[in-house]
């Protein structure tokens, strides 16, 4: 595809790796914040061609993995209510809560539909006026404005049997919380490309300044990722900690103002529990009172109850980049994609699933 395949060019990849080798003055520890980066790095086998002293650590950027078990249990609860049909992104289908997964709920009779767009969930609501269609919403800034636009469309069309169960989260507060951990020594962050399309590269300036860390916004093709690693290597060599944009074709400095405005019109920040990271202030996005009739939590009167993490599961430390799946006693034994214990195994972009599926040759 145009604007994808150019960035998979073998010659460019080889020259970028040579250049990284040439510029690099010390071993590098880099965190890819976004789960889609984790997937891309594995899919293209980038670890196998990078110099051995560049360590890539997977961060908390898989929205499904950081969704608390309370929310997953809440999702399951809604799915099992009479007269309810839930719509989800495929990513959520097999995620285990303390009571099982939506896949299991479906086998037990729940109506679960995988959709490609939140707008498809609204279409389902119009098609089934006798049911309440609930979109179980997970996602970061890339996705939240889409759900906001869908709620506004439901409002305009006066669709009364549509609601959203929001487990949305935003990235900057989580990065602040994460980088505040002194154990985490990082040289640079690969900042999530499509979150940045919405929030703009400028959003990372406080992070680069407060934590003295290079923040490179980049895309998801091998050339994008390698270009960002090269920029971090240069900054380290030149003793700089700046925000740079390696994804100019899709991200600008100020972001997408229209999408941000829509997001804030419908949603407001609230404190939010992240799996493995705990409660982070003002990091969740809840539906504003004005749109309460589209809020599934209020409509179905749901109380969230936090349950402890499964025994022995290291997902929390893995999401913080402190441990790798190889360190986990459950990995590949009790915890496999077929019988996942923690969320990082079941989400396709989860670190454990990526390690399991793609391995390191």
């Amino acid at each position: 595809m145009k604007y994808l395949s150019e960035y998979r060019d073998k010659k460019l990849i080889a020259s970028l790796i040579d250049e990284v080798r040439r510029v690099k003055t010390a071993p590098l520890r880099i965190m890819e914040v976004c789960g889609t980066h984790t997937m891309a790095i594995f899919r293209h086998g980038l670890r196998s061609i990078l110099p051995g002293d560049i360590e890539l650590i997977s961060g908390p950027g898989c929205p499904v993995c950081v969704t608390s078990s309370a929310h997953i249990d809440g999702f399951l609860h809604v799915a099992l209510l009479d007269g309810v049909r839930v719509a989800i992104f495929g990513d959520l289908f097999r995620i285990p809560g303390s009571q099982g997964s939506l896949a299991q709920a479906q086998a037990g009779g729940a109506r679960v539909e995988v959709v490609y767009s939140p707008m498809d969930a609204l279409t389902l609501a119009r098609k089934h006026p006798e049911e309440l269609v609930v979109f179980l919403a997970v996602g970061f800034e890339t996705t939240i404005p889409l759900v906001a636009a869908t709620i506004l469309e439901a409002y305009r069309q006066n669709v009364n049997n549509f609601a959203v169960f929001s487990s949305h989260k935003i990235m900057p507060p989580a990065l602040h919380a994460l980088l505040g951990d002194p154990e985490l020594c990082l040289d640079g962050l690969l900042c999530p490309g499509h979150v940045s399309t919405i929030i703009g590269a400028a959003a990372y300036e406080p992070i680069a300044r407060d934590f003295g860390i290079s923040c490179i916004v980049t895309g998801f093709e091998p050339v994008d990722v390698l270009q960002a690693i090269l920029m971090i290597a240069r900054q380290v060599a030149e003793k700089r900690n700046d925000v740079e944009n390696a994804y100019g074709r899709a991200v600008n400095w100020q972001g997408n103002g229209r999408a941000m405005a829509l997001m804030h019109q419908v949603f407001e920040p609230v404190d939010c529990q992240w799996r493995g990271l705990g409660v982070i202030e003002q990091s969740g996005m809840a539906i504003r009172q004005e749109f309460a009739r589209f809020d599934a939590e209020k409509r179905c009167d749901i109380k969230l109850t936090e349950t402890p993490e499964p025994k022995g599961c290291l997902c929390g430390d893995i999401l913080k980049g402190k441990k790798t799946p190889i360190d986990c006693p459950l990995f590949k034994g009790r915890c496999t994609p077929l019988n996942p214990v923690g969320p990082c195994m079941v989400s396709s972009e989860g670190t454990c699933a990526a390690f399991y599926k793609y391995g390191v040759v």
Partner: protein
Amino acid sequence: MCLAVPMRVIRVSGLEGDFTLTPLAVVEAQGIEKDVRLDLVDQWPEIGDYLIIHAGFAIHTLDEKEAEINLKLLREMAEGLK
């Protein structure tokens, strides 16, 4: 949670600038066409523009000039190292 791909605009419907009237575009890549919503783009796209598509919505108009400049630099670097 950020899977998004660039696709080329082949048709636009709705009223330019009025985002409340179901702003839609048909986009194309390698023979595949898809209807997408334009609610979130901060500039009204033209035929031939590339849009970044995430879950059925355009979230950005791809900056082709920026892409060409970047690729040119990378190609020069690759040639220079030979």
